[in-house]
């Protein structure tokens, strides 16, 4: 065998190895982890993200602004890239809420709400894979549907949630955790408060309401304020109950 033959065999071998690895590669692309990991670490460290507003800001930053492939992951296009990555992130948040019931201003209801809203097609937040896509789609849709651009913010889930919590005592009661204890802040307003979860498989619980689907206890979550005259009564009752919970905390302190 001369040098050329050996070279040829070596090249062939290299080519075969590459082919094998390329076949492997079809199944080994790991995407979407960056959003999950960075969002969860921030949730563990910064107590602002454990408030309702902060959590929505976190979701907006890590998934909407920095990009998450909602079109593929939620199964809207072909279905081959469908993956429960967003569901997994919400599940991990639920595990944290379960392990630290006093640390989070919002309840698990918020997570089920966000999960079901992401699939419903009602909100522009989950359209497109990133901000540029979303803006383009919104501009196009507003021209076709003849919607003035001033109305478009309504289609953001985060905007919808912040209005619900402020204006409707029913949703305030469902979304706000009465056992939440805000952290004391220092002079410049920012602190770092680390919560360390138990991560072993045996320490985690199955998130029934989210994964097993719709619970009939969830009331009409779209349009309508069906009981406007009862809003005040509900608000007063909620305030009284919150005061009672606070007094219990003072008593055990």
């Amino acid at each position, binding site marked *: 065998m001369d040098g050329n033959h050996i070279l040829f065999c070596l090249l062939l071998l290299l080519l075969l190895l590459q082919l094998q690895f390329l076949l492997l590669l079809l199944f080994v692309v790991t995407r979407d982890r960056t959003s999950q990991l*960075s969002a969860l670490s921030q949730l563990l460290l910064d107590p602002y993200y454990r408030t309702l507003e902060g959590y929505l800001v976190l979701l907006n930053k890590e998934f909407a602004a920095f990009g998450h492939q909602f079109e593929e992951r939620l199964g809207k296009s072909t279905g081959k890239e469908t993956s429960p990555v967003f569901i997994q992130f919400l599940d991990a948040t639920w*595990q944290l809420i379960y392990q630290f019931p006093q640390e989070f201003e919002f309840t698990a209801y918020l997570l089920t709400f966000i999960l079901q809203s992401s699939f*419903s097609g009602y909100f522009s937040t989950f359209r497109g894979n990133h901000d540029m896509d979303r803006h383009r789609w919104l501009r196009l849709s507003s021209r076709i549907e003849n919607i003035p651009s001033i109305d478009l913010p309504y*289609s953001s889930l985060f905007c919808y949630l912040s209005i619900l919590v402020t204006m409707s005592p029913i949703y305030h009661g469902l979304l706000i955790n009465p056992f939440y204890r805000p952290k004391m802040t220092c002079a410049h307003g920012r602190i770092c408060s680390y919560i360390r979860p138990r991560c072993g498989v045996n320490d985690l619980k199955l998130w029934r309401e989210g994964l097993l689907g719709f619970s009939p206890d969830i009331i009409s979550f*779209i349009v309508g304020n069906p009981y406007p005259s009862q809003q005040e009564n509900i608000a007063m009752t909620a305030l009284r109950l919150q005061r009672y919970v606070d007094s219990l905390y003072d008593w055990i302190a």
Partner: protein
Amino acid sequence: MCIRGFLIVTDLRIILLPNEISGSEWLDDQISIAAESQDYITPDEIVTLRRCTVQIPIGSIEDIKVVAVDIRTSNLVINCRDGSNFEFIVHNYGSKIKKYRSPVVDFTLLHEKLLQQAKSRNSSYIYRCGLATDDIIPQVWCARVVDYIQWSIREDCVWSKWLQYWKLTMDTYFPKSESLWLKFSNNIVELEREFQRQRVQDGNWMFSEANNRYQICSSYPQTLVIPGLLVDDDIVLASVERSKGRVAALVWLHPSNQAALCRAAQPMSGIAGKATEADKKMCLAIKASGSMGKPLRIADARPRLNANANALQGKGFENIAFLGGPSVASLVFLDIENIHVMRSSFLKLKEGLLVHSPEYDDSITSSKWLYHISAVLKGSVAIAESLLMGYPILVHCSDGW
């Protein structure tokens, strides 16, 4: 769980209107709603006046299946993409609804057996209902509804109708709320506000104009925060070295030790681990911004095998020796599996739970769903503890999504 009512398709969702008073199956006014809906698609406004127990947004429906059980009864199953399923036992009263004002519904043994089987499937709720149309055969109803759903999703009708109804509600019930909906309306403003809350400019960071028209990366936001030691041109050069232009950008800054959490995509280093000065400058700038002088920790979310396979494609992971060795940077693989493994785990979990009750641990453990959640949580804890100790972190997976 057995609720009796009418199944109605609106332009936003499929809902079940329950019978309000027990004793008589069909009330006059519910029959009149059914008769009014000449077209089987009812505008959502009418039905919101009533209490609904089940609502299935049209956008989340994956498929609808109808199986005829006997001449008067069919089993209708709706599967949704988020994992929920609904099962309805539909009684065909046909087009002569008005004739059955107070029917005696005789449920034979077969119907009870269906109910029992359905109750053993804890994740599914069973409802007994009629259809709010004149269609005699649920199969016809089903075919029309499936067509409607596919059309409305394709034409984005669901989204625009929702917007209309939402605006109507806001104007009717909450007329003074304009100032509230301005929050989250503009991502540039929101992100800037968030980074100002973190006081990034007090530290060694600054806002960059490099992506304000999505020039360097179409999938990144317009607001980017970069180390103060760099200028916009450095970012443009560094973005070429990262997959899809997803250059390292700050997401969070520790309030006291100024350790930074940055995210990026994999570098285009290839099997030889070649790196460029631009990327090295970026990494060193991130390291220098921490006030404790600790080395940069690079967290690669992939298993090492996947990273090597990506390297053969011309991408890969950082070359620590080129960056300056272990005193400057270190690399760790977090071993989290890919999206296809997640999908099969989720499907297996759903399947297992549909057959057994959740008390059976086998279906949960064999799908390894909790194992994957555990892996993600462990990775986050590792990152969080490094940040607490003052190590700047750069997280990436393959495309940095």
